[in-house]
């Protein structure tokens, strides 16, 4: 089963750039001056890479959040990172600075994280539930602020904001890929560095503490690292939902192994999932469907199926 998934995934990754609204013939592809070659190198390839990196970051981020919060419903957006990014994108659009919106989005995401940790540092011990509640409260605040932005915006601006919230892999360039590749690499290195401590966290906070691990410091470091990487992803593509929830759960059902063995698979299959969803988005409709719509349309029924099967 696992090998089958792996082979199918690799095949998908290799094939994905060859499909889309414009048919590419293989012979033309080899000619550097041809349109086909340009489309492949400038649009298709970066897009597949972008989808893979974003999917990987969201999925791995989801796994880490679910472990740190002891809550199967947490996603990389649980702490309000996506809402912060969305609000600041809206501000950028309304201020007429739409060209800088990714920068604004990243500032919004990071500001959220900093507010959250400033609040959390005032808690006595490590209290994930309180952190979660602060994140939720912050989310409501941002949602209200976003409504204010909508009220202040023109029709055109409202549409732009709405498009951002649906998620999109349209804006691609190798510069952005570079940023995300760096974010993904940092995230993976962080998990590699903390692998043993993370493993102790899989038992219980108390157990980890007794093995000499500084649970609070470790948890905050992990949440912070994930939030930075996710912030970078969200600011470029918008809040693409569901990947961070479904993939870790899917792998837990499929692998039946402890979470520290699912770190790399989570990243890989999260990437594959988003590449697949993007492929569907690009192939199905005349106008490309927003990617966030596809992830949820494809993901939700499959997720429910897996949950039902897992209960048997």
């Amino acid at each position, binding site marked *: 089963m696992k090998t089958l998934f792996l082979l199918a995934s690799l095949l998908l990754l290799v094939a994905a750039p060859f499909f889309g609204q414009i048919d590419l013939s293989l012979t033309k592809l080899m000619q550097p001056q041809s349109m086909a070659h340009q489309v492949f190198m400038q649009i298709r390839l970066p897009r597949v890479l972008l989808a893979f990196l974003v999917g990987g970051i969201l999925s791995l981020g989801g796994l880490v959040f679910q472990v740190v919060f002891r809550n199967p419903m947490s996603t990389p957006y649980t702490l309000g990172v996506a809402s912060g990014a969305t609000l600041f994108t809206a501000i950028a659009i309304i201020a007429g600075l739409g060209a800088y919106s990714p920068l604004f989005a990243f500032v919004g995401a990071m500001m959220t994280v900093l507010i959250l940790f400033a609040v959390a540092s005032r808690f006595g011990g490590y209290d994930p539930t309180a952190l979660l509640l602060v994140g939720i409260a912050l989310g409501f605040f941002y949602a209200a602020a976003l409504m204010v932005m909508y009220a202040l915006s023109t029709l055109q601006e409202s549409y732009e904001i709405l498009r951002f919230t649906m998620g999109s892999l349209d804006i691609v360039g190798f510069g952005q890929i570079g940023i995300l590749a760096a974010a993904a690499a940092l995230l993976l290195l962080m998990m590699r560095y903390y692998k043993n401590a993370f493993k102790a966290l899989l038992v219980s906070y108390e*157990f980890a503490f007794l093995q*000499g691990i500084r649970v609070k410091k470790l948890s905050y470091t992990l949440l912070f690292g994930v939030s930075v990487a996710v912030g970078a992803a969200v600011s470029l593509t918008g809040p693409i939902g569901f990947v961070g929830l479904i993939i870790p759960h899917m792998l837990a059902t499929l692998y039946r192994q402890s979470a520290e063995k699912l770190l790399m698979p989570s990243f890989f299959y999260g990437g594959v999932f988003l590449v697949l969803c993007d492929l569907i988005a690009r192939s199905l409709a005349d106008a490309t469907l927003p990617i966030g719509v596809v992830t949820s349309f494809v993901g939700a029924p499959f997720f429910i199926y897996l949950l039902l099967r897992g209960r048997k």
Partner: protein
Amino acid sequence: MPLHITDYSDEILHNISFRLEAGSHLCILGANGAGKTTLAKVLCGLIDTKAVTIDGKLLHDLHGTARAKVVNYIPAKLEIFDTHMSVEELLALSHFDTALHIGDALERLQIAHLQEHPCRTLSSGESQLVLTASALLHNARYTLFDEPTANLDPMRMRTLFALLSDEHVLKSKIVITHNLELAFKLGFDILYLEEGRIRFYGSAERFFAQSQLDALYHGSVKNLGDHVVVSL
């Protein structure tokens, strides 16, 4: 390196002070809700305080492996978030005493067959034995056991008794229990808690004197010489 707690109080415990010499052992007894587990959590640092010193150093100031090597606490129940983890993987996390192999620790508790099992398949008794194996592999200077026999069948209880009463196993053992027979046979010094206060701290011999038992248990515990029984 003696373990020292000085005038500790919180919601549950009141004015707790005592000293345990390095290498000596202790049984903590007391009624339900007397504060035994809370005391254990204070002594191992899970409840943060500046009242506990080990060898003159504040436990509060010890971190990382340095703290782990000094004190360990084995809870009454194995709480594990990710139950896909195997017994061997779990034990590897507390494997500080590299002279002892995981297989040998399991063998010692007669559960070698569980090594590859995922933790989700363990019964409560088996998890308790796995936790005890983790204590051996951890081998801290002070190991606190919270109700180590609570879920064990009579045969397993003997295995565990043999282990706890072996002078060569672990440096200092602190055992919380309701099992008076176990405390009696171990013969460790006794600390008896009542409503969060230390009511008795002294030798087992003094504790199990019938007059002392009557004062604490109001006639419900009898010392028969080579056994202690609860008269129902």
